[in-house]
């Protein structure tokens, strides 16, 4: 039975509790003075890797977290360390948005470097909602993948993943190495405990550039415009059922 070396990619995004706003130029989302946190799905991925370690004594050799983003992305790596990751890598790509394919290519290099045999990552990041990185990485590595996991079980080299699909559950099974992307209901992430926050300060945080991995960053898409959805019109109050029916008819709803 091989020991697990888990890789958890984590992305720094605008905190999900904060309402994002479009910048004045209409080219993207305003990032100045806004709170950033770990992407919730990545947080769930990290939590799952920690639970695997806790549930299977001695099975997990390493949990390595990696983030691709600006220098500040080290904050989410610190969070990952504080919650229990062993080591981290920051690939500093500056402020530019990186497309999923480039991300997957960089992750492929990290997988090789860290000799990972299980990758658990969020099914998507809540900033671009792309939902592509896990699948692309599986393609590049030619590994089996189980997306949108709501339950993960490990027995020896065999990993069983349950996915919530329309009308029920879909159960997949594959041998390591493999890729799992996490859905919302997989688990509920923990808090960072004070002793772990202290310990995290002493854990390793490796910093790389894309060029260190021999990856050239090229975006294939161009953002033309970012717009807010149209405002919903205010509703009308009616006094009686008759008036309601009249209104609905007037609006050609019935």
């Amino acid at each position, binding site marked *: 039975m091989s020991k697990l070396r888990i890789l958890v990619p984590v992305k720094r995004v605008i*905190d*999900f*509790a*904060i309402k*994002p706003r479009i910048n004045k130029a209409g080219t993207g989302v305003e990032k100045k*003075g806004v*709170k950033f*946190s*770990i992407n*919730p799905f990545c*947080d769930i991925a990290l939590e799952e890797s920690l639970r695997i370690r806790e549930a299977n004594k001695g099975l997990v050799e390493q949990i390595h977290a990696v983030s691709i983003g600006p220098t500040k992305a080290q904050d989410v790596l610190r*969070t990952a360390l*504080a*919650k229990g990751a062993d080591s981290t890598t920051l690939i500093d790509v500056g402020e530019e948005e990186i497309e999923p394919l480039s991300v997957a290519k960089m992750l492929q290099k990290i997988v090789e470097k860290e000799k990972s045999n299980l990758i658990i990552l969020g099914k*998507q990041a*809540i900033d671009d*909602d792309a939902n592509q990185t896990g699948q692309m990485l599986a393609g590049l590595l030619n590994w089996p993948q189980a997306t949108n996991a709501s339950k993960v079980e490990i027995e020896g080299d065999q990993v069983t993943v349950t996915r919530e699909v329309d009308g029920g559950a879909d159960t997949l099974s594959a041998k390591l190495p493999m890729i799992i992307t996490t859905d*919302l209901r997989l688990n509920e992430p923990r*808090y*960072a*405990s*004070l*002793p772990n*926050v*202290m310990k995290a*300060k002493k854990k390793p945080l490796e910093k790389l550039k894309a060029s260190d991995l021999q990856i050239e960053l090229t975006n294939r898409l161009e953002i033309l415009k970012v717009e807010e959805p149209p405002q919903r019109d205010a509703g009308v109050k009616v006094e009686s059922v008759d008036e309601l029916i009249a209104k609905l008819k007037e609006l050609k709803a019935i």
Partner: protein
Amino acid sequence: MIRSLLRSTASRSFVCNYSSKAVPLTAETYSSKVSRNPSFKKLDETDIKHFQTILNDGNGLITDADDLLFYNEDWMRKYRGQSQLVLKPKSTEQVSSIIKYCNEQKLAVVPQGGNTGLVGGSNPVFDEIIISLSGLNKIRAFDEVSGILKCDAGLILENADNFLAEKGYIFPLDLGAKGSCHVGGNVATNAGGLRLLRYGSLHGSVLGLEAVLPDGTIYNSMESLRKDNTGYDLKQLFIGSEGTIGIITGVSILCPSRPQAFSVALLGVSSYEAVQKVFVGARKELSEILSAFEFMDRNSQVLAGQHLKLDHPIESDQYPFYILIETSGSNKEHDDEKLETFLANSMEEGLVDDGIIAQDETQLKSLWSWRESIPESSTMNGGVYKYDVSLPLKDLYGLVEAVNVKLQEAGIVGFDDPTKPVVEAIGYGHVGDGNLHLNVCVREYSKEIEKVLEPFVYEWIQSKNGSISAEHGLGFQKKNYIGYTKNDVEIKLMKELKKHYDPNGIMNPYKYI
């Protein structure tokens, strides 16, 4: 889409814990203490007709018995009045006309904001007319340079704060009931809340008020400046007056710049001694960024856990005391560095046994919920006797211990024993302000419990030179107990003042002093 889906779990509101049992009438429960003042007129059809002409709006009057219940009862389900009429004026002029008429006719009134009070101050005792300020809910003006907000009294605190957040400012008051309570009610009761430690009392931040006096006169100091030393500072009379000398209709308040970064930590400590030491350390090391320092005892957390249906976030063990620390400042890295260094030192010194730090906005909110949900949790088993007291810090928790001993001696307390009327006395509160909330959680309200608690609690407080009401006010509950905190001269001056402004005594009668 994903974002909004995730967010749906994050919002919280002030939930009432309604059971089917009817709340007994205040007039019956306390029949030995209070009787209706016969000089007040009883409401008749002519009065209602007159109010209709003033309000000129079909929705402005509530006379339906079921609809009245919401206004007659308090959220703790401890008090229930018998008012036959709720008026919802939409302008200060309407409030003025109503009050003028009531004064002439000797109709007693009770002003009501969000009805989230804790001492029965906003509910009628007998048949007083309820004047709800909920229709006066507009923001009048905001100055983005000075940070001065002018608004109607009926504006909901959370709406005020959300409006200010858009402009980069913060309301200098925050409390658990923010989703329901009104700004005017906050001022009328001089609410303290969670951030008094940082932003001070409303006596400092309120710059001016608009209020209707008992004869219908409109007092207006809304245009006041930050510094103005001309004459008596009359607005101060209305702050904390609980609607006894006038109805506040407008508030002008100075709002501080909204902090860019908040951090929250929840700590477990092993003694009240340690709570005090951590507080001293926090003030010293966190100094200007410290914005809240709350403590909670073990049983308050057990009850909160049952109410929230969650496991406590500090998993390692149960601790006798918990501390919630909030910092707020302009630079997250700077604040976190300070907070983490402080917490590391406290742990090394053995003051803090375990703790957690919120890593994102959601965790921050859920850590706060372990403090903010205690008031609701304490009513969960049936009801709660609330005492909100100021005490010297060293004696703060001593009151909770003394009360539990007293309840044990009386043999009426059992945390897991449903045959006992009392669940437990729990303590929590704002250590930073020397303010303890003693909540005696009960399975039912009864004279027997009340006899054990009162006047014992008040005498205990008096013996330590504390105050019997730190922030909840006097209302109906503490009307007869002001003497434990104020001396005869003070009380005499207050009574004279009341008589001067409200000679007929129509404003919120049977309460306060």
